């Protein structure tokens, strides 16, 4: 186990370093000078040069990369060109929306998908299975922003159970959760559909394994066989998808954030890109990449907890 963890950890660090380099290089290549963008096209060359010097844009690329990286380690993400506040502050404000939203959606998605997938697999070809498969087909096919609008129309406009958008802050947690409910449902629907299908097929594969037959021959009931022997083995492929989904939910909620006017990370990146606020783009993208890599690391560690075959260091 320690060797496995050490290996995963090294790969985590290497991935982070590689990601930072790629992000830095890509943003070097993209057109658009933040200084020129701030001053407008009619700016005087010497004013422009002065601003560039002030923003540190005239230093060699390597120096800027190292400075940026060094700053990241100290939690210093730089100052936003457009908002004129530290990027860390901007991110911190928004992560308190994006992270709970992602966790909320992921929770909903697994809560729906696990039972749905297990029921569909254990009652294969029954009406329950056909229903689950039909609904998940629909869930994968529906664009989630359209589904979000339907939710707003029904629950916010007609029934008035939830607000149509915006975020009141975490001063009143109940109110905050209420504001996040519709977006989380909209985000969770397609994820739950995919996850149900993965759960179902993983469960079906596992249920046809020899050791499930062995368990039945030992005298276990169908239910006991499912819980004690099949579920843990079926979880291995499902975990992979859950990890991927969390990464997507954290960074990919931008459309849903727009539908519900939520000031989340997705919207921050989007606005920063349009405003050529490259320092924000660079840092937020790095943060998101780090989150994705970290989640992958956690999934790897969970694999080892679930599957003893991964823990071995020697044959």
């Amino acid at each position, binding site marked *: 186990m*320690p*060797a496995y963890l*050490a*290996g995963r950890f090294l790969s985590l660090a290497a991935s982070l370093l590689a990601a930072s380099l790629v992000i830095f290089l890509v943003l070097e290549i993209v057109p658009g000078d933040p200084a020129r963008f701030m001053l407008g096209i009619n700016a005087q060359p010497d004013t422009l040069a002065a601003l560039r010097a002030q923003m540190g844009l005239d230093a060699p690329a390597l120096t800027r990369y190292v400075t940026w990286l060094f700053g990241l380690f100290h939690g210093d993400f730089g100052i936003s060109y457009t908002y004129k506040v530290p990027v860390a502050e901007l991110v911190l404000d928004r992560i308190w929306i994006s992270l709970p939203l992602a966790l909320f959606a992921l929770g909903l998605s697994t809560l729906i998908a696990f039972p749905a997938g297990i029921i569909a697999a254990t009652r294969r070809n029954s009406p329950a299975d056909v229903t689950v498969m039909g609904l998940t087909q629909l869930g994968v096919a529906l664009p989630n922003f359209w589904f979000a609008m339907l939710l707003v129309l029904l629950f916010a406009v007609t029934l008035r159970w939830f607000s149509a958008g915006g975020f009141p802050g975490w001063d009143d947690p109940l109110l905050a959760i209420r504001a996040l409910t519709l977006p989380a449902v909209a985000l969770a629907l397609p994820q739950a559909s995919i996850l149900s299908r993965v759960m179902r097929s993983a469960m079906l594969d596992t249920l046809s*394994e*020899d*050791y499930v*037959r*062995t*368990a*039945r*021959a*030992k*005298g*276990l*009931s169908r239910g006991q066989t499912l819980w*004690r*022997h099949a579920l*843990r*083995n079926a979880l291995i492929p499902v975990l992979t998808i859950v990890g991927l989904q969390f990464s997507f939910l954290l960074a990919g909620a931008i459309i849903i954030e727009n539908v519900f006017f939520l000031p989340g990370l997705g919207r921050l990146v989007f606005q920063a890109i349009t405003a050529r606020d490259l320092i924000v783009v660079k840092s937020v993208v790095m943060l998101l990449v780090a989150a994705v890599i970290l989640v992958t690391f956690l999934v790897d560690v969970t694999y080892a907890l*679930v*599957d*003893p*075959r991964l823990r*071995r*260091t*020697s*044959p």
Partner: protein
Amino acid sequence: MSLLTIENLAVSIGGTPILKGIDLAVNAGEVLGIIGESGSGKSMTALATLQLLPEAARATGAIRFEGTDLMTLDDRAMRAIRGGRIGMVFQEPMTALNPVKTIGDQVAETARLHGGLSHKAALAVARQTLDRVELPAPRFGLGLYPHELSGGQRQRVVIAMAIAMRPKLLIADEPTTALDVTTQAQILKLLERLVREDGMGMLFISHDLGVVAGLADRVAIMRAGEVVEQGPTLGLFRALQHPYSQALLSASSHQPQRHPTPPPDAEPVLAIEGAVRTYPLPRSGFWGKPRHFTAVKGVSLMVRRGENIGLVGESGCGKSTLARAIMALDPLEGGRISIAGKPLSKKGADFATRRNLQVVFQDPYGSFNPRHRVDRLVGEPFHLLGSAAPEGPERTRRIGKALSEVGLTPADAEKYIHEFSGGQRQRIAIARALILEPSLIILDEAVSALDVSIRAQILDLLADLSIRLGVSYLFISHDLSVVRAITDRVLVMKAGEIVEEGETERVFTAPNHPYTRELLAATPNVEAALKAREARP
């Protein structure tokens, strides 16, 4: 009264009859052997006894166990019997255990379920039971996982799960088929001991007549869902009545017509000198040194034109690794391999060399692309001819000829592989190997997955092709009786080395190396088993 009596058991799936009126009985302390080829319904009989038939199956008749008709019990009552009073051991030890649970937990589960024991008490029972199946502490701790054990050890764990509650009846469905002969002999001895110690009845299912003749007190022979013949082992085998039983017995010891051994000065088609093949192993720790496992340790052998060579050994002895190196799929770390006089380079074999060497694998189901028609499958090696590859009618003619050689018809080229049985598929694999008229065909366990009667036919075909086309075989197998039937010379491999080499008859009748003697002694043989029974007082 018998422990288990099966009366007029009939099972059908989707209207297709699988079992047609089976009558069997097992007494306490007695072993009933059921012999049958694939599809004979022997496994279905076992599953029906435990009421674990597939959901679509419909069963009629009676299965009386200790006086109760199991067919009338509900699932709850049946669960108390499964694992408690009837234990079952399956064929595949590699997959019969849950990979994410420890062996202690898995054996203890039976005890908790049926004995109502606490976790701790159940683990104590598991410890005792593992000791009984000869997996003693501390080498075999309860905390081991299945992947940390060999196939034979895993089968012992499966047996421990089945006998933990000292059941009255043990059903063993091909429990040793996936194991090496020496391991098989140990497991059979273990089962025999457990039956004797506990006075259990055992329903022992196998396709191997030699194994059943050695173990069973009474034997039933099944075909296509029916018991064609049953009786006490010795009397039954000495005077088989049914034509099918007789055919089965003669097929199991089938000796194909062979040609005389080729002259010793015939040109070599395969020459291996001091072949070494090593694999890297995972490091022992994060900072550990890289380690290596040498699978083939300086093996030399030669196959001459028209000669059939056998390479025997148990799993892990390096025979498949050597075969991969001969096929130029993996490079050697030392030594050299020449095919028809041309040495293989580090980069592998060129087309001209590959033309001289073809291969037939074990699994007739997995070794074909199911989306290609037979003509494409058989004609695939033509690409080795480059621009000289036949096209149009000539290609069709040659594919038709190859199919005719192996006993199929040219019209079969139009079909897909799923339309053929296992034996026919193996014929197609041989046709594919023959199409370029190679000088050497490697047969890697090529008849191991086949039923005995089909196996006899394929062995006849191979012997006939060898005579007519002068092709040499390197016959790799763990099955000594097959190697004896088809080869001129045999090499015995153990732990990466050739321990004995010689004329096949000499090696089989007067083995020199202790390992060869051990292998031969462990190989099940009907005649030897019957003689041993006759010698008993």
